[in-house]
């Protein structure tokens, strides 16, 4: 038993040496054969690595934008289509909730000192928003809870608005007409870089007014969409269930009256999407691998025919059929493994270049490398099987007669 294991090992070692010399002896043909596998593996590695790099970039930017927040959107019931200020106060007082910024936005015509701009994004903000984004106000003051309570006609303008209407002069104290209503400018803010998930979908705002005022201008007193900031050390699922417990009685336990979207669920969706994309692209690329495998099979079949005499001779010298089969299997295995390893290197290089061009992060995925190498090795064995079997079954006399 031990002896047969040892002799098998000796045999396989010799086969590897012989395969290398055979592959090397047919450099051009081997290279062309390997090319198919190489292209396939390169494509698989480059696509998977790039897609996973892009998806991790997207996910990380999403996470940094919406860390610790939960979005709630209210569909409402027939009796009650949104939340009142008191409802929001109730929610704010929850232990799991640190604060709430309602999302109230409108598009308005803005007039100031003779200039008119239409379709300006105006956002209603709560005082809590400025508590979160302390650095956003560069001149003047923030909107506070008094403005909120009184629905005051005060506003903050963005740097862009300042350059449009005030020619870079400090605008604090000036009067601005939003849809014909005069507002006093109380401050100036820089473009917000992080205002939660909502801003990604609604675009950037150029004017901030108290959200209560914004509601009034929309002829409504109810908030239908807001972002909840979680208390420290609370998970998004804890917040969700606390919010559900508070929201349900507000809508008399009617179903489908609101939707709570956590970052987790958005991340899940993103991951599913990019995962599907990677699978799809990987699947397309692996067609190239199959084509490469057929190339290897073709070359091995040719090789077997060419080396009929060698096979017959080896059989005459005492080679068993399985030894012949193993020799040819190892040869096709080595061929595609060479292609696979070269493909992994090339694929990683390609995706490094791609990630530089796209500007995504370059993540070396161990799974993709294992897949590339493993798949190519499997292709080698799978497509080498039939030619190797053919070789092993060759009748030694027929083989020798052809000499």
């Amino acid at each position: 038993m031990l002896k047969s294991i040892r002799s098998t090992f000796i045999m396989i070692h010799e086969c590897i040496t012989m395969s290398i010399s055979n592959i090397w002896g047919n450099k051009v043909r081997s290279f062309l054969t390997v090319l198919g596998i190489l292209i396939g593996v390169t494509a698989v590695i480059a696509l998977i690595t790039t897609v996973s790099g892009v998806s991790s970039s997207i996910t990380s930017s999403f996470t940094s934008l919406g860390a610790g927040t939960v979005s709630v959107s209210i569909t409402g019931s027939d009796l009650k289509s949104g939340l009142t200020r008191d409802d929001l106060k109730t929610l704010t007082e929850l232990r799991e909730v640190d604060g709430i910024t309602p999302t109230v936005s409108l598009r308005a015509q803005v007039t100031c000192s003779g200039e008119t701009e239409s379709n300006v994004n105006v956002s209603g903000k709560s005082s809590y928003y400025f508590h979160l984004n302390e650095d956003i106000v560069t001149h003047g003051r923030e909107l506070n809870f008094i403005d909120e309570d009184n629905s005051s006609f005060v506003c903050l303008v963005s740097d862009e608005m300042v350059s449009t209407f005030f020619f870079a002069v400090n605008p604090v104290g000036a009067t601005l007409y939003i849809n014909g209503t005069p507002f006093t400018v109380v401050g100036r803010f820089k473009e917000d870089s992080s205002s939660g998930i909502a801003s990604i979908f609604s675009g950037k705002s150029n004017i901030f007014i108290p959200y209560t005022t914004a509601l009034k201008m929309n002829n409504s007193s109810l908030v239908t969409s807001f972002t909840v900031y979680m208390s420290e050390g609370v998970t998004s699922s804890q917040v969700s269930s606390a919010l559900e417990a508070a929201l349900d009685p507000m809508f008399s336990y009617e179903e489908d009256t609101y939707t709570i979207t956590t970052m987790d669920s958005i991340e899940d969706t993103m991951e599913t999407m990019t995962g599907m994309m990677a699978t799809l692209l990987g699947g397309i690329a692996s067609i190239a691998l199959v084509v490469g495998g057929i190339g290897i099979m073709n070359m091995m079949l040719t090789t077997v025919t060419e080396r009929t005499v060698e096979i017959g001779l080896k059989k005459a010298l005492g080679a068993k059929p399985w030894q012949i089969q193993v020799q040819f299997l190892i040869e096709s295995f080595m061929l595609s493994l060479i292609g696979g390893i070269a493909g992994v290197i090339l694929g990683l290089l390609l995706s490094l270049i791609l990630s530089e061009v796209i500007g995504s992060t370059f993540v070396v995925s161990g799974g993709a490398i294992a897949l590339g190498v493993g798949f190519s090795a499997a292709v080698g064995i799978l497509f080498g099987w039939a030619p190797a079997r053919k070789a092993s079954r060759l009748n030694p006399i027929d083989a020798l007669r052809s000499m």
Partner: protein
Amino acid sequence: MDKAAEVETEMSTNHFFHMQNICKDYLMGEEVSHILKNVNLSIKEGEYLSVLGPSGSGKSTLMNIIGCLDVPTSGNYILQGRTVEDLTSGELADLRSREIGFIFQNSQLLPRLTAIRNVELPLIYAGVRPKERRRRATAMLERVGLADRLYHYPNQLSGGQQQRVAIARALVGNPSILLADEPTGALDQKTGKQIMELFQTINDDGRTILMITHDMNIAAHAHRVVHIIDGVLTEGGGTGDA
């Protein structure tokens, strides 16, 4: 005389090589052609026998059967006490590896391997360790007078040298019988004679040799000659009656 008597007694207890009523048929299209017809042949250990016959007489088929490359259609073939026709292809390979050394007309060396690697080949399939393999192959190449050609490739060797490498390869596994198919067929007369001298020294060491040839002069080197014509084997009796 003493030696012959010894062989004789061994033969009676143990059939070293015995063929009885061997037939081999090939299907040629619709027709069955009988290549070998009731061949009976026995060889004693240490004998030097040649099978003489024109081409197409079935002598190559006979050699293939003797060499366990092929099995007879009917009849009995016993080699070293084993009934060959009952063996699987794996067992046949095993038997070839241990008992038989082949020498072909065109030496049939693998062109990509050096002389020593060619000689090592049978030992690889027998599972011999690399060091031991190298030692035995070197010794065998020295034995056939090629000590200074170990690392030459076949195309760097003359026809006679190639045939010597092939002989070394056939002998390296220490087989009980050496099978040679037209061993001098591709060589000039002088080189052929040298090879025949080598065969004689190999036989002097006690190795059994069976040589197949169409050349009476070559066959004459053997101690016993049998004739094969149209698949029928006849004992030729003496030698040199050409």
